[in-house]
């Protein structure tokens, strides 16, 4: 763990260095391990009469520079009971996956869990986490998405009531000793050789796929012997090719034994500056049926201009996007059912669960197939409301849309063959 000198108490010290060091004529950051010159910034400090160099890649976690010392403390283990409560029984499929993960952990194997949206991935890892905590292994559940971290964090805290769980994202402070952590991937930069068991939720989400240093962060945070579980509903090709087929666990059914909703395609040209009655009628129908509707846009500007048109007619309308200052409050209000129709970008494509939800995608020709699968996966996730509508409004069907629909139908067929869904 990387620590500030002033905050140390009785921890054993592994290493003391400056935040960045020079190796082979290149600066290397000790926190995020980057050596790309564009990540470093240098300036002259007159009060020290020195050139100061620091890393900008991980500055949000504290500045690493060539003058201040950092202390890397030794990783410790701590045994706890790992008791959890679950209010329901795992499905046949979940049990199968849960056992597979537990075995992987016992042998320190790494696995990809290719599970459809709403398969109940979070519950499948409980048994393995419990075992890990009883052995004293350090556990991290990470995701590139803040929203996913918050949602998963709530569910884990709810199940493991007696454990000391650190939930780390953006400015959240660490309260415990980091033996059981739910965090964004960025936060792993602070841990070095610490975790035995790392679960990565939504591996294919931005920015993890775009930023190779984040993948390295997972590796640097893990001990020499580790178990990594990568979970996603839309694994990228590269990940599937990297892993051996026996290391991929495919789960094709949802926990409530209903098939995935299959998207409908409809031609529709969205005009951002006029009210279109097909849309307003559609919204009216949704409100009459008492269904919540998520409307996905590919573009924030377009979303805002549509919002300004339709908000005059619909009272319970809101929009939310990544740079929205009220983002977390709005998502929370949405969960509480304050809005009936919400305009959003791809930030709500993952990790959002709500009953009685339908989705509409505008200009679906501009979306990636993984995004479309995830969006369709928002619907019918609760046992009490397992069905719903997925509508792709397009200006021309694309291969990505077809692939998304084909993937969903393929998973449904697979589940049917295994007898994991009742149709």
């Amino acid at each position, binding site marked *: 763990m990387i620590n500030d000198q002033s905050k140390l108490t009785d921890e054993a010290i592994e290493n003391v260095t400056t935040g960045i060091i020079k190796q082979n004529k290149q600066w290397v950051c000790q926190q995020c391990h980057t050596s790309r010159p564009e990540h470093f*910034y240098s*300036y002259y*400090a007159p*009060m*020290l009469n020195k050139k*100061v160099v*620091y890393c*900008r890649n991980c*500055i*949000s976690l*504290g*500045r690493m*520079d060539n*003058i201040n010392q950092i202390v890397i403390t030794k990783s410790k283990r701590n045994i706890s009971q790992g008791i959890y409560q679950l209010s329901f029984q795992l499905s046949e499929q979940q049990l199968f996956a849960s056992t597979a993960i537990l075995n992987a952990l016992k042998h320190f194997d790494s696995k990809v869990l290719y599970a459809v949206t709403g398969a109940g991935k979070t519950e499948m890892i409980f048994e393995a986490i419990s075992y890990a905590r009883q052995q004293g292994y350090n556990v991290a559940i990470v995701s590139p998405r803040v929203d996913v971290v918050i949602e998963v964090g709530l569910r884990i805290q709810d199940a493991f009531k007696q454990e000391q769980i650190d939930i780390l994202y953006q400015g959240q402070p660490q309260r415990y000793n980091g033996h059981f952590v739910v965090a964004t991937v960025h936060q792993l930069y602070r841990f070095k050789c610490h975790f035995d068991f790392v679960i990565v939720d939504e591996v294919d989400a931005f920015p993890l796929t775009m930023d190779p240093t984040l993948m390295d962060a997972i590796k640097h945070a893990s001990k020499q012997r580790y178990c990594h579980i990568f979970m996603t509903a839309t694994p990228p090709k590269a990940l599937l090719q990297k892993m051996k087929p026996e290391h991929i666990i495919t789960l094709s059914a949802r926990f409530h034994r209903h098939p995935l909703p299959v998207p409908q395609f409809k031609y529709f040209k969205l005009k951002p500056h006029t009210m279109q009655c097909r849309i307003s009628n559609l919204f009216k129908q949704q409100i009459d049926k008492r269904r919540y509707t998520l409307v996905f846009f590919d573009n924030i500007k377009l979303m805002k201009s549509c919002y300004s048109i339709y908000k005059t007619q619909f009272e319970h309308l809101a929009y939310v996007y990544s740079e929205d*200052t009220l983002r977390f409050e709005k998502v929370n209000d949405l969960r509480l059912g304050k809005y009936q129709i919400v305009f959003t970008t791809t930030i709500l494509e993952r990790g959002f669960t709500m009953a009685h939800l339908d989705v509409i995608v505008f200009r679906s020709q501009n979306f990636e197939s993984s995004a479309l699968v995830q969006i369709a996966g928002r619907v019918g996730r609760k046992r009490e409301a397992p069905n719903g509508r997925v509508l792709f409004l397009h200006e021309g069907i694309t291969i990505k849309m077809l692939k998304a629909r084909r993937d969903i139908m393929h998973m449904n067929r697979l589940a049917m063959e295994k007898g994991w869904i009742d149709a």
Partner: protein
Amino acid sequence: MPNCIQCHKLFIDPFNALTFYRRPAQLCEQCTNQWEEITLKLTLQQRCSKCLKLLEKAESVCLDCAFLSQQYPLMHQLYCDFKYDGIMKQLMHQYKFMKDVAISDVFATRLRLPRGPYDVIIPIPSPYERDLERTFNPVEVVLQKMKVNYEQLLVTRVRPKQSLLGKQLRARLDNPFEISKSADLENKYVLLVDDIYTTGITVHQAIAKLSVRKIRKFDVFTFAR
């Protein structure tokens, strides 16, 4: 295609007859919009002509300026282009507290000093201890990046963080500024530069010390208010 100096994304800066004589853009469209959002629009709102404070409906004379003029010689004019909000707040935090010196480049391209024929430009100092801990002085670094000739004539001692104190408390504390160099300031036109203007007490304490030297006129420039 250049990289935006604020978000580092590539953006397209069109090159045509209209942009031929313009300096190349440094910020992408999105970041420019973020700055646009926090730009003070002086003509649209009723603000104090001196300190640019947003006036209440019933407020015909700015109470802040009236309060300050009881204790200190009042500045002639505050120049400030941005609200301390949104992107400014975010960047200021990253710059001063996370010590991300690279942000000074962004400030330097966005800020414009008032033109007036100033004889001396004086930045408001930070305590030496704080500069040492930070390894840079936030105001001076930006001025250096803007290639401004300034003179550091003041020093200050460590005092409680202003942002933690209320207005009454700030006013009651005694003046922490001292003049460090002997310079002839008689009948000069001075511009004081600081990062954030909130109550104006900091700047006016500096003015109080400097006005002993018979300065003709004080203007103040801050990054945000």
